[in-house]
């Protein structure tokens, strides 16, 4: 799921301090799971901003609301009136939701979160990056662990010289992807696969190849 982190309160305050009616608008799917952008966090953020407003002696009417997902039109109908009422919206959805609203509403839509990565919930409260969405998956060759997403230098024939006791050179808290890959290949008895050179990667399907689009005619509805 998509993981994001709330922006510092100071930064958000800078966005909304000159507006009169602000709606803090939650998105109740991915970013609610990491408890940063869900409807409840929107409520909490609204309350924090209201207290900031009173501290700064500025009169702003800050409301909060939220919908299931901000990346699909139909969900917005339920909150149409609240969005109309506001003269600025602080959306705590991931970057997708913020832009999706910006395309549909003629008023400033400010991002509440810094969207960080596609990740897994290792345990309650611990989210770790897993996938870079490079468009050409090589997990079959690396025993199911992706060096592109989980190696700091995207080394395709790792490990590099800097890995010490299984950790990446950049930090003791980051596993060396290739250490995991080697352990995993050993577990699966595919260690001989390690010596095959990984060919140079075709990055055209990655973000480097430009913004991507998927069209499924068979699913398209000619409404």
């Amino acid at each position, binding site marked *: 799921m998509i993981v994001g982190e709330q922006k510092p309160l100071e930064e958000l305050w800078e966005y909304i301090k000159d507006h009169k009616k602000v709606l803090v608008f939650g998105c109740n*799917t991915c970013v*609610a*799971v990491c*408890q940063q952008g*869900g*409807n*409840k*966090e929107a409520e909490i953020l609204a309350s924090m901003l209201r207290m900031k407003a009173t501290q700064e002696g500025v009169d702003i009417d800050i409301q909060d609301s939220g919908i299931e997902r901000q990346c699909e039109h139909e969900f917005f109908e339920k909150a149409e009136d609240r969005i109309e009422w506001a003269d600025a919206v602080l959306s705590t959805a991931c970057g997708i939701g913020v832009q999706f609203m910006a395309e549909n509403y003629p008023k400033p839509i400010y991002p509440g979160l810094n969207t960080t990565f596609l990740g897994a*919930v290792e*345990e309650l409260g611990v989210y770790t990056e897993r996938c870079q969405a490079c468009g050409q998956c090589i997990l079959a060759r690396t025993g199911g662990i992706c060096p592109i997403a989980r190696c700091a230098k995207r080394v395709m024939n790792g490990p590099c010289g800097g890995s010490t006791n299984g950790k990446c050179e950049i930090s003791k808290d980051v596993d060396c992807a290739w250490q995991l890959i080697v352990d995993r290949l050993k577990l699966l008895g595919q260690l001989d696969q390690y010596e095959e050179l990984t060919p140079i990667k075709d990055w055209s399907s990655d973000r480097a190849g430009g913004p991507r689009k998927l069209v499924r005619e068979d699913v398209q509805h000619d409404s």
Partner: protein
Amino acid sequence: MKKKGNSTKRGSVLIAGGGIGGMQAALDLADSGFKVHMIQKDSSIGGTMSMLDKTFPTGDCSMCMISPKMVEVGRHPNIVLHTLSEVTAVEGEPGDFTVSVHEQPRYVDAEKCTGCGACEKKCPKLVVSEFEQGLTKRKAIYSLLPQAVPNTRVIDPVNCLYLQRGRCKACVKFCDANAINFDDTAKDYQLQVGAIILSPGLDRYNPRVRQELGFGRWPNVVTSLQFERILSASGPFSGEIKRPSDDKHPRKVAWIQCVGSRDPHNANPWCSSVCCMYATKQAVIAKEHDGSIQPTVFYMEMRAFGKDFDKYVDRAKTEYGVVYRRTMISDVKEDPDTGSLILRYAAEDGKLINEVFDMVVLSIGFQPHADAAEFARTFGIEPNIHGFARTSTLSPVETTRPGVYVTGTYQGPKDIPETVAQGSAVAGRSMALLGEARGTDITVQELPEERDITEEEPRVGVFVCHCGINIAQTVDVKGVAEEMRGYPGVTYSDDLMYACAPDGQEKIKEIINEHKLNRVIVASCTPRTHAPLFQDTIREVGLNKYLFELADIREQCSWCHMGQKEIATLKAKEIVKMNVAKARHLQPVHTDAVDVTPAALVIGGGVAGMTSALSLADQGFDVHIVEKNDQLGGLAANVYRTLDGSDVQAFVEEKIAAVDNHPNIATHLDTEVENTGGFVGSFKTTLANGDQFAHGAIVVASGGMEYEPEEYGYKESDHVITQRELEKQIAEGLDPGSRHFLMIQCVGSREEPLNFCSRICCQDAIKNAIAIKEKSPAAQVTILYRDIRTYGLREDFYQKARDLGVLFVRFEPEAKPQVDIDGDRIQVSAFDYVLNRDIRLFPDTVVLSTGLRPHPLTEKVGKQYKLTRNPDGFFLEAHVKLRPVDFPSEGLYVAGLAHAPKNLDETVSQALAAAGRAGVLLSHDKLSVSGIISKHDRDICMSCLACLRVCPFGSPFIDEDGKVSHNEVICTGCGICAGICPAKAFQVNNFRDDQIHAMIDAATENICAKA
């Protein structure tokens, strides 16, 4: 099964004794439809446990555990309390007894007295308080303890000035409820009951007898129970540890063990089982109160045989610095000018030492009440040689008279969990005896249809209670009532002299009907004890009982702001406003119920499994035993004799036979549980062999396993055997001749990685040693031990073994005995503390007392039912003291070695207890779900699993269509899921977000108004 019919058996039970054991039995029986008559000698129930400050090994506060139970017993519609009463005669036979009871006069009318305490304040006569063990005084009119149940005051006729010399009557003058009634007389009446349970508990040994310890002469020598009162926050010194002589804080405190126990000459020969542990606890808690205290415990043997006891003692030594000296005190002298005490004892190396201590605590043991002999005669049961109720190891809760059962310390000295377990056990036995009479003696109240108020605007009624002077003395009650008249949503607001009194109740019902109220707020004492009372009252006039909130303006306002009239009144108003604000948002709560399949699954066919199964079957429920092996019996199958000589093989065969031809029991051998679906009340289990059945409860009796030793050369020579193998040889007619048997204790126990006592090995060793010596006195038996833990009445056999000439040599874990084998010669070298030098022995046979381990299946069963285990791998019970056979999630019970190592009689008690507890559950057709639970809204839940990960009871689960669902039956309403749910899909009834927000807004009304 409830067959009303014309059975001659009576549906009620008499319980003689209101301690924790009697209370547990009373609650189990009352909850499963039996009428209970509880006879209590004192003016309040609670017994010894209510005098304790904290309990081992967890350090939980005793009153916090027992007072909810006392309140429940006090309020239970099926339980009748007969305090200040004694049984004078018993006639009849099992199922139909007639019991005559003599009740002393209380001189206070229970209906009128509200426990306000005004009388006690004014009573001039001071009397030494028995409850506080003579450390402080009480009045002639008094309540036994602050949390007494019933909390009606009682007048002590011996000391009351009016009753003795016709003067004073101060209490009458000051009692607004005119509840004092000096014309009260003793009453004699008869009760018809089906079974009798004896739980009179024990008296404490009075150490004054042993002059040399100086109790009664030197003030700073106190008994352990006095020290409990000193430690207690509600005790004479409010928890501050002070010396009775000069109120100074003691630095060096000594505990002397076995005072009055294990001393056949001038006290009691038995071991009282609990003193080693309560001394350790008192030392630890004392250290927590005052870090500068240096505790020292003088003991003979550290009998920490229970679950996690050894770990607790180790922690006392390492973390709290408690010093343990294995030597007895010869005498105690007082240094007159300091009041400190000089203790004389022989140190390890034999030198005589005089050590000065600021305070000495005598760990006094138990002994039967002075009138125990007469008590036994009244009930027609035979006492054993020591005056306890005579029972046999293999039926520990049955007295010599059928239909009369015993629980707790009257059956033999024991700790609280064993007492509670026996409480449930005797409840189970009584249910089995009176099965078909269940429900015949209780009156079920007819309630009118509930009014549907969902469409109505909130019409809140506020009743502000004077509670005599308790609230009115500090809070302007009329002012509060007036203030609330204008408050939004309030339709009626007035004051009441005593809201909880019967007339107060009637007034409330009248006003509800007259003003068509749909929410009720009573402002009086604490909701914890009185909310259920008012909820039932408003339900009697058709209002859903959750449309009620109780504002605590006594304990949390008038009593703690005494004298500050105007501040307290303001605060009372705010408290009532908060609750009214919440009341406006209260919704009716309909508790649905779940069908209960009257059948039980018992996992494990050992003694524990079979005993539970038989008791449940006798209660009329179907039982399915699932046994992994191809025959029943478990570990007990290769045990021959108990310590007191009962034939175990016969007992096991008899149990197997009873199980095989009991119509209600189905046995599934040579198979395991494949999986269990459903939840409490309606489980569905499939076995590995394909059998399937439905059941409402599960008893886990997966048993234990004997430790297979590697050490002491067990593998190298067949002259090195285990106690079990020796027992088999003895049973098969071994002729010991003049051979030398050397036994080694604690093999594979009490050392890392499994640092726990297996509890049975000392008994096994002594049993076999006696058998050998009795067979041929020429044989020589030496036992190398660390601590002989023959606790309770087993101490007699330790004495007997020594009399028969068995030698006991102690070793320390650092200097364990060495066993060297070459061919047939075995040499054992060890260090003898008494001779203070190394010794070498050449026994013919070495016998290893091996301990117990959790059965390898424990882990698998644990995973299947989400049951947690302690670090040693045994199952963790719901509460170490008060729910010893329950698991946290309802419907699951544990018995036998799967819970912890225990002796056969304790396994039988625990198995009967599990059957009793399961019986309570299965006795209901419907399992009513409590109202205060968490409600889950599936359409706004996105299955983020945060709730599933935090719920301690495992009630959120991933259902068939892969989304999160919530099992309301298991939910206890703690609301942790609601606290963490990002989508706010969980709301706890009566604690919903809008209700709490309303309270916060009301509480901050004045601030926002001012700003």
